[in-house]
């Protein structure tokens, strides 16, 4: 029995099906991300766990208790919103104390708990300030402290980093992960940012059009995307068509050049299939043993800072290759013929 069990929940507003039969089990202490484009239903799933929406069908169980019909105040879950949602009329300390006061805790206990929480989010000295006196990142830390003060059974985070600047976004996400590990609290995190989801989670749930597309650990999602949607939504992927030569020997051709794959392609000799290749899985240079190699021509080079993206034409396909920008290494020249190498492991065979 998992700590949180979501059974076939659906949500529709009239004919508009926002969530379609989502099943999800979350273990105690796990950090789960719901990842997908806007409108994929990820936030609605989170809001059904929190109790802000009632599922049209299905049930939500937390710690063996069916909470489907309970209102949010009865569920004992902590929630952090994209818009911070601190109470503007209260000091930081009063914000953090709010849930404890509602629960009728004694004043001394509240005071100690507030201090502990502010310490936890590394803002021990701002208790007397008002929310508008804090930066966005600080406000979101306080919102986290407020949500955790009531010792919730699960922590729900609804795009908590989207309103912040790039640098703060990275540091706060590491902060959230470290607080979560320290407390061992079961956490559900909603985001549309794939790097965020991959870097922070134990498992990632990729959603699209109200359904779960793929569920797995970050490396599984990234390295073995099962559908074309996951492959293109998570990371960059060059998508090519290939032709099966021998399904048993796992040999294919791309254009007219032979390559090998690690997994057997589904289909028979001569079938067209779709394969993908990550820009960072490819390297330049002479063909090596056991690796695939293709001949291509460099068409463009983009300088992206830490990375140089080399764009190449290989038959009918445009292939992208990423290499680190290092002072020593020289990028190839535009127009030059090159040979690219990649491991059979890195050739992703897509279902559709």
């Amino acid at each position, binding site marked *: 029995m998992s700590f949180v069990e979501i059974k076939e929940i659906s949500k529709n507003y009239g004919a508009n099906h926002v969530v379609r039969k989502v099943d999800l089990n979350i273990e105690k202490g796990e950090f789960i991300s719901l990842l997908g484009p806007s409108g994929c239903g990820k936030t609605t799933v989170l809001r059904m766990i929190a*109790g*802000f929406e009632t599922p049209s069908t299905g049930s939500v169980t937390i710690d063996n208790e069916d909470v489907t019909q309970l209102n949010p*105040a009865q569920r004992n*879950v902590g929630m952090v*919103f994209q818009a911070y*949602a601190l109470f*503007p009329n209260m000091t930081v300390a009063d914000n953090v104390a709010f*849930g404890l006061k509602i629960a009728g805790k004694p004043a001394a206990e509240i005071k100690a708990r507030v201090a502990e929480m502010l310490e936890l989010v590394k803002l021990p000295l701002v208790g007397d300030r008002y929310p508008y006196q804090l930066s966005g990142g600080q406000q979101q830390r306080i919102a986290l402290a407020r949500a955790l003060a009531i010792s919730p059974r699960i922590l729900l985070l609804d795009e908590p980093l989207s309103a912040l600047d790039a640098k703060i976004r990275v540091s706060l996400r590491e902060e959230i992960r470290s607080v979560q590990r320290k407390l061992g609290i079961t956490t559900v995190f909603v985001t549309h940012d794939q790097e965020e989801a991959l870097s922070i989670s134990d498992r990632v749930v990729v959603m699209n059009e109200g359904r779960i597309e793929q569920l797995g650990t970050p490396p599984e999602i990234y390295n073995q995307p099962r559908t074309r949607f996951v492959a293109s939504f998570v990371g960059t992927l060059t998508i090519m068509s290939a032709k099966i030569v021998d399904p048993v020997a796992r040999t294919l051709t791309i254009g007219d050049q032979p390559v090998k794959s690690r997994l057997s392609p589904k289909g028979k000799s001569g079938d067209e299939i779709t394969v993908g290749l990550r820009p960072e899985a490819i390297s330049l240079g002479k063909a090596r043993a056991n690796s695939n190699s293709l001949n291509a021509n460099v068409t463009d080079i983009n300088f992206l800072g830490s990375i140089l993206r080399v764009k190449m034409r290989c038959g009918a396909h445009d292939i992208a290759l990423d290499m680190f920008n290092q002072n020593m290494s020289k990028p190839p020249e535009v127009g030059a013929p090159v040979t690219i190498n990649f491991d059979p492991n890195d050739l992703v065979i897509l279902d559709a």
Partner: protein
Amino acid sequence: MKNSKIGAWLAVILGALYFLLPLIATFEFSLRLKRGEYSFEAYKIVLSDPDFQSAFTYSIVLAIVTIVIGILIVVPTAYWVQLRLPKLRPLVEFITLLPLVIPAIIIVFGYVRMYNTSSILPLTQTALGTDALLSFGYVALALPYMYRAVETGMRSIDVGTLTEAAESLGAKWPMILWKVILPNIKSAILSGAFLTFATVIGEFTFASLLNRPTFGPYLQLIGAKRAYEPAALAIIAFIITWACMGLLQVAGGAMRSANGAKK
């Protein structure tokens, strides 16, 4: 760019003159009670008139009652509509705009018809009943201002998310309204209250048709009998109104700067 600035200032100044010139003319006239010199004689006469004092006190009490009833009706309604029934907003806006476009005279007609001495609820039979009717009428009259002010206030804070945040921390509805929503729309309510106050103090039709001794009918009575005192009364009414508006601007400014700082 500089031309347009001058144009804009000109428009603002013209607008100000539009309202201020009649006011200045009235003020100048109100000082001319004594022949050949300016004096505040007209004001002295008006302020020492016991009828003025009683009419004025009566209007203030009515205004306060109206404000309290208005807040009790508008705040929960606006909160619920914004939170749970956003689809109803056009309808509610329509209803709150009605008093602006239905001439007051029609509302009073109906009231007199419904609550006359031979009806089931003969409110107009007693003075207290009529007062109740009058203040209900005023609530309706002031509804557009109160509702607009409260609604704007609620929109400026994110009512929905704040409510959900409080709910997830275990708070129930009355608690959320009292501890989270009300403190954050205080200045909006205040601004609605001031507009209501100004409306009630200056109202004439209702009071006159229901035959209650408020400030409006008193103003008209004096206007029919005297020359300079009505001008003085108009100026007094304006100063009170102006004080209300000033407070409103202060309250609004405080709200705006708090919101500005929040961002």
